[in-house]
């Protein structure tokens, strides 16, 4: 007697809740769409930009554009050259006055540092090889001395250097 109304009530309640929720959501969406005054403007803007984009892509892909940008760059380099040269000369003179190295001298020093780094890297590689060979030889010797049986060589891994966590 008491279970029957409950059985009937539950689906109706669920439907009502769903219907109310869906209805309210739809209304909210409708309102949101209705009050957005910029939607039409956005669509117009996007259509215009799309059209312009195609025009511009075609424009930059022409010989004329390449010629124009090339001419612009050349003019810039020509016009700025005297100023740059004067500035460079003044800078070199100033640095000399202050007993400071010039850009070229610092660059030459940096190149020498890189060469030194390469030498160190070569040494590191040689050391790795020596360590691998000596550990291999040690393992082989130890393997032979153990009842004449050869032990399994190590997997050739060199010691992992202490890395710096970033």
């Amino acid at each position: 007697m008491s279970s029957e109304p409950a059985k009937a009530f539950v689906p109706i309640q669920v439907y009502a809740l769903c219907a109310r929720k869906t209805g309210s959501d739809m209304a909210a969406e409708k309102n949101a769409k209705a009050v957005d005054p910029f939607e039409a403007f956005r669509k117009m803007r996007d259509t215009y930009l799309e059209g312009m984009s195609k025009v511009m892509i075609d424009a930059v892909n022409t010989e004329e554009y390449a010629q124009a940008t090339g001419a612009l760059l050349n003019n810039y380099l020509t016009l700025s050259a005297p100023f740059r040269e004067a500035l460079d000369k003044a800078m070199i003179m100033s640095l000399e006055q202050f007993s400071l190295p010039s850009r070229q001298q610092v660059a030459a020093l940096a190149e020498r540092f890189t060469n030194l780094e390469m030498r160190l890297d070569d040494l590191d590689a040689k050391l790795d090889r020596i360590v691998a060979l000596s550990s291999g030889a040690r393992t082989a010797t130890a393997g032979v001395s153990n009842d004449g049986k050869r032990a399994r060589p190590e997997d050739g891994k060199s010691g992992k250097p202490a890395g710096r966590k970033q």
Partner: protein
Amino acid sequence: MAQTAELSNPWTLLEQKLKTFNRLMTTKAPIGQTPKELIWTLNKARLYRYIPVVPAEERYPIPLILIFALMNRPTILDLRPGHSFVEYMVSKGYDVYLLDWGAPGPEDKKLKFDDYALDYMPRAIRKMKAVSGAKEFSMLGWCIGAILTTIYASLRSDDGLRNLLLLTAPLDFSNKQELTFARWTDEKYFDIDRVLATFGNMPGEMIDYGAKALKPIENYITNYCKLWDSLDDPRVVEAWHSMNTWVTDIFPMAGGAYRQLIVDLYRNNRLIKGELKIRGEVVDLKRLRANLLTVIAEGDHITPSCQSEAILPKVGSTDTELYRVPGGHIGIMAGSGAQKQTWPHIESWLRARSL
């Protein structure tokens, strides 16, 4: 209630949008955050090893080294937590290394592909092998990084390279009609000697302008309009912020390497023709015998697909695959679809060849 009323006020909404826009334009997002350790350095170059998250016995024995282009930071491969190729590969059990070229200074203006491919890469790879204990390795090159890895793989084919992955690789420059860059850098209009004599290295701003000017409306206007429309979506905002942080972090390209890119490749197409000489040695693509996966972005305006297709019949590899992905030059690895398409394909290709 008061908060809802405040949010429905158009002026408050506009103020919030402007605040967010201002934050995005004036701050940098944290990118490249996957934990890593520095294991090798040479000049500005750095080799990092990402801290594994999978136990050693479950990891693949073949390490993977990532090599990006020379003119941008490689952090695009590790953009942000939850959207990082590096994080994805590390979580799948790969021992991942990243070679970061760094920003060249005036003292590096003479650096050429020769130096990168024969001085820096072999040393970094030696270190990676020493640390991982592996004799073989996989290598992924992206954009100009793909040129360098191709040169390296051809010249040092017996160095243990098992798998080579090339992403949006500009290798063939024969189709001049498709290449806007080739038109701009033609010797009739572009005096490369004069530019490099003036600047030493190729300024990052000029390279950036070149890349953006290929699609000027998209890069200078549409990009910001779309951002403005989505400023109330935190996911879009954070994705845009991290991408913008990477895009605006520009630096020059070493003068010597830039000259080779323009003269040897864009103008004379020497790599595919088999005429490119690196330290006097001809780069013979037939000597490249590693398993090869070439990934092409179908909507790539920087490296059109015709530039990456020609390599397959030229190499000596027997196991080759060409994989096309919808998307742009960067989008295929860092866009929203990368996680669903490009990364899983790369991972499954590599998985079968890393045992």
